[in-house]
């Protein structure tokens, strides 16, 4: 009976998703049919109450505010400024200005919660500049596709909020837990770029004349706005001064301040950023609504509990479980976007994870990295979409260019499994326990 219910609902889910029904609505459809067939509870009440409860919660309020902050910053001259501030420092490294992709994305990720927005904002400046200077397209575009995903791992992070809300984990802790793995991944990316450049010296343009230290320091003033925003958002969370939501509100106000200081805060830009953020958030909200209903329905049917018992019965060790999950998520990531991946699976997987004694914060960070990998796997990968739009290149070509960076992310998962302290140490030092 249970196996039958599981298989039937799974087939229904894939049929709805695959045929192109909007994802949030597909989830509602599966939840409705599942409850109608396998429980005796009133379906309509469950639907209304779960969706209302899911979308009116205080914890979720950080999400639209961070989306809004990103929309404002995308319309400022921030990326231009960052390039001006970073280029003088990075030009002499092996790999030269390719590092502006990695370092630019790393810094921008600390004010942006999304991978595609990071990729688009940084690429807006670095792609034309690097192409003009004669850097090879493949490493330029590949490193941008890879480094853009840092937007998810380095806080603030939209996917972490989604995970925190669905899995009932502390969002502030998840944010802080992402810092060390995020910097480590950036270091891996930069290291790869440097190694690649040393082996392909002929393909790169010659180094430009190095500016003097004074000139470099003067150029660094362009980094001041972004650094101020980072301090405002991240430090307020880390030292326990603000919750994630309050930090997000400070971020929006700060971003508006930056836009005003740069004289890019026109009525048009303000209106576009506001409506853009409202619609983007709404898109996420529809998926969350579907997921809230589906989670409640699955709880009534008891599928996640049975799944956990079944997996426990297999007697897998922790690393076998993580390996199996990683393979599962990589395949899923080829066809689904990150948010849908998380909301679809977390309610099923969580009981298993807890039963296996895995820390929910560790699992959250792990999940974010797997979702990052999904951003660059064809045929559905948001960074690929963004770069396809920006460069006009074929998606498979971009995916191939990003492949080394995909492998580095996989390597990071192994490292974090071996050294879980990289994730758990920093949050344990936080100012408060929220």
């Amino acid at each position: 009976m249970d196996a039958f219910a599981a298989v039937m609902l799974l087939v229904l889910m894939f049929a709805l998703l695959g045929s192109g029904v909007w994802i949030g609505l597909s989830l509602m459809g599966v939840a409705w049919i599942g409850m109608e067939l396998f429980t005796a509870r009133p379906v309509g009440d469950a639907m209304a109450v779960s969706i209302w409860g899911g979308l009116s919660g205080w914890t979720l309020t950080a999400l639209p505010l961070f989306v809004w902050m990103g929309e404002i910053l995308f319309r400022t001259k921030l990326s231009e400024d960052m390039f001006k501030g970073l280029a003088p420092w990075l030009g002499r490294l092996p790999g030269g200005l390719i590092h502006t992709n990695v370092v630019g994305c790393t810094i921008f990720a600390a004010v942006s919660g999304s991978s595609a927005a990071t990729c688009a904002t940084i690429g807006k400046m670095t792609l034309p500049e690097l192409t003009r200077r004669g850097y090879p397209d493949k490493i330029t575009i590949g490193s941008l596709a890879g480094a853009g995903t840092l937007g998810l791992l380095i806080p603030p992070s939209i996917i972490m909020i989604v995970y925190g809300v669905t899995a009932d984990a502390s969002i502030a802790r998840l944010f802080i837990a992402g810092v060390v793995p995020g910097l480590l991944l950036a270091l891996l990316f930069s290291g790869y770029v440097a190694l690649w450049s040393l082996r392909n010296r002929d393909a790169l343009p010659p180094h430009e004349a190095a500016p003097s230290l004074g000139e470099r320091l003067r150029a660094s003033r362009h980094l001041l706005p972004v650094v101020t925003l980072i301090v405002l958002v991240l430090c307020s969370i880390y030292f326990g001064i603000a919750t994630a939501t309050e930090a997000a509100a400070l971020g929006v106000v700060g971003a508006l301040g930056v836009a005003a200081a740069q004289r890019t805060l026109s009525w048009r830009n303000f209106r576009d950023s506001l409506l853009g953020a409202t619609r983007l958030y709404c898109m996420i909200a529809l998926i969350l609504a579907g997921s809230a209903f589906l989670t409640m329905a699955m709880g009534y049917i008891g599928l996640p509990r049975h799944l956990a018992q079944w997996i426990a019965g297999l007697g897998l060790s922790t690393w076998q479980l993580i390996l199996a999950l990683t393979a599962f998520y990589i395949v899923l990531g080829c066809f689904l976007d990150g948010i849908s991946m998380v909301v679809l699976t977390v309610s099923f997987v969580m009981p298993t994870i807890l039963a296996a004694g895995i820390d929910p914060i560790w699992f959250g960070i792990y999940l974010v990295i797997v979702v990052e990998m999904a951003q660059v796997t064809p045929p559905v990968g948001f960074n690929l979409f963004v770069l396809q739009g920006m460069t006009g290149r074929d998606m498979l070509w971009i995916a191939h260019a990003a492949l080394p960076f995909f492998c580095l992310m996989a390597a990071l998962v192994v490292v974090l499994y071996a050294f879980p302290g990289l994730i758990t140490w920093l949050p344990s030092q936080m100012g408060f326990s929220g």
Partner: protein
Amino acid sequence: MRRILDACYEGAAWIAALLMIALLGLVVASIASRLVGINLPGLDAYAGYCLAGASFLALASTFVHGGHIRVELLLGRLPAGARIWAERVCLLVALTIVAAFAWVSVQLCWTSYEIHDLSVGDDATPLWIPQLGMALGTLVFLLAVIDRLVQSFTAPATTGAVEAHFTE
């Protein structure tokens, strides 16, 4: 008729946008009140209501602008004629689900009004007021889906626009 419908979607989206500003204002107010040491109870709950209102009221406009995501893998590979039919089937399925969504939302709001359901938090708000946004938003969403389904028969070429997503 076209103009009235579009005004409906955009009007709802503008209310949603104003609720976003209100949400920002409430969070900033709660920070400020804590800094000066005044306790304003219920701000968190109001922020939650603004959030919910914004999400539901923007549904239609987001749908019309092609903002809600779907898996277009198979859909995009069909020949043009088959694609139009597949699109109609998708819209019909969506219509059924959104109709149920709107129906239960209106019912929830009505029930809260009938039994004078109050929020259990500090704010003690009559719940039908914020739930009105859910009822209205889902109704406008239903209207937009019907509109699109009708269009898929009268002017099928206009469907299927894809927008860039900056969410993730």
